[in-house]
């Protein structure tokens, strides 16, 4: 990473610390902002956040490793999560998953070569009455069919 990029990133993190406070209780909200932006939280970011909140970097890593929505390894630009819990499972989750896997040429848990999509399973998205459900980044889509699932992905930039 270039020094100039590092400086810009540090500045941005300082902005989040200003917004949410420098107490440890601000940690998750700060991590969330960075996760949303970069789709991962790099070691450099972990160290910067730790420095600004006055905690050990490994404490930040520990929190990241606990939560399903935070990760330290890079992921694709768009995160596709398909609900695997029972109601969505019964209404044909598998068909939608297979269609997406075929179309993108990857399996669940993998990232496409152009880094555009990462495909994952999620536990209950709370859309059980409209399953199968899928989330692309922070937006949700319901009543998927294999065709509809693929069509939705083709609209993503």
């Amino acid at each position, binding site marked *: 990473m270039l020094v100039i990029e590092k400086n810009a990133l540090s500045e941005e993190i300082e902005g989040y610390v200003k917004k949410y406070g420098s107490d440890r209780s601000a940690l998750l909200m700060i991590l969330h902002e960075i996760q949303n932006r970069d789709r991962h939280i790099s070691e450099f970011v972990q160290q910067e956040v730790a420095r600004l909140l006055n905690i050990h970097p490994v404490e930040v890593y520990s929190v990241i490793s606990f939560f399903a929505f935070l990760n330290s390894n890079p992921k694709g630009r768009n995160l596709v999560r398909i609900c*695997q*819990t029972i*109601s969505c499972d019964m209404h044909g989750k598998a068909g939608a998953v297979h269609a997406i896997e075929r179309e993108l040429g990857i399996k669940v848990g993998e990232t496409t070569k152009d880094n555009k999509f990462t495909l994952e399973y999620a*536990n209950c998205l709370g859309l059980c*009455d409209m399953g199968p459900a899928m989330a692309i980044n922070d*937006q949700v889509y319901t009543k998927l069919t294999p065709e509809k699932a693929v069509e939705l992905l083709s609209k993503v930039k």
Partner: protein
Amino acid sequence: MELPKQKRTGAVIFSEYKRGDAIKKIIIMSREDILFELKESKLKGRGGAGFPTSTKWMLTAASKSDQKFLVCNADEGEPGTFKDRVLLIEYPELVFDGMVVGGYTIGASHGIFYLRGEYEYLLKSLHAYLDEMRKDNLLGKNILGKEGFDFDISIFLGSGAYVCGEETALIESLEGHRGEPRNRPPYPISNGYLGKPTSVNNVETLCTVAHIVLKGGQWFSKVGTDKSSGSKLFSVSGDCEKPGVYELPWGTKVSELLKLVEAKNTKAVQIGGASGMCIPKSQFDRTLAYEDVATGGSVIIFNESRNMLHVLKNFIEFFVDESCGQCTPCRIGNVKLLEGVEMIQNGNFTFANINKLKELGKTMQVASKCGLGQSSPNPFISILENFNDEIFNSANGGNHGK
């Protein structure tokens, strides 16, 4: 994507209410009056555990501290539960008015709304709603002109951990730690967020409170049964014509609910989500109430075509995924239960082993640290017992749980 809204009717939560009604009512009430109405109502917490709300608030109110917190637990992660989503999209006035009432009652000036990460798409509209409330002086300093009545709400976003629905794990994550449950006691009512007295309440509980302070505890306790007062939201999904959220009085029979949602050829109903129990056809006359089948509201319906072992495997996989790993019974126990299910699936099991695993499940129920491990063996035990024939004897002319 916009999720559809619909016109709903119900005895309590879906009855008529306008924004600020409850707040206008409480500014002329004392805290004791509110606690009295809640006690009269016999309202129990709607998250699933069923702790009396009046007792929780009375104890938090009685705790001495310079600062207290009211936390609204919108981390609904139980498979098959989506009532909070509906409440937040269609009835935000009830949720946030309920929080203001709670803050006033326990003496907190800061409310924290803990929204699960999966519901991030609601964040924008909720922020906009809170801004409107601030404009109308329903939040902020000296609410509705009442001197010293200060209360404001901030929204905190979770990050996809089921266990954070447990109140002490939720508080841990609010404080910026791993969401691992704490030993209790001490309870949050005395040592909660940042060590201060904290009341953690479910979204539906707070919605109900807004109606109770407006219409009275007696009005509420007239609905439902003697031990389970009022009504409950049920999130119905699975094999039925009309899935969705229904408000029904406690004491409704399972069979009545199935009729209402037009479920056909029903073989089994999972009540209380993955951590609840699975009841077969022979028990459909049981009632939904704290004294019989208690539930946080999740109802998943399975028809004759469903393979109950597949259902069980889905549930146990969920728990293996979501166990926080802190205590041994839950971390290892769930993996062992999953191995057991896989053995049955492969036809490579002994009954001695399966009986041992049922024993293990009972051990997990008493030895786990929090509700996750204490309730995760429920589907294992109830499905294997109630669908014994389908699972173990179907090759020998079993009757498929009928």
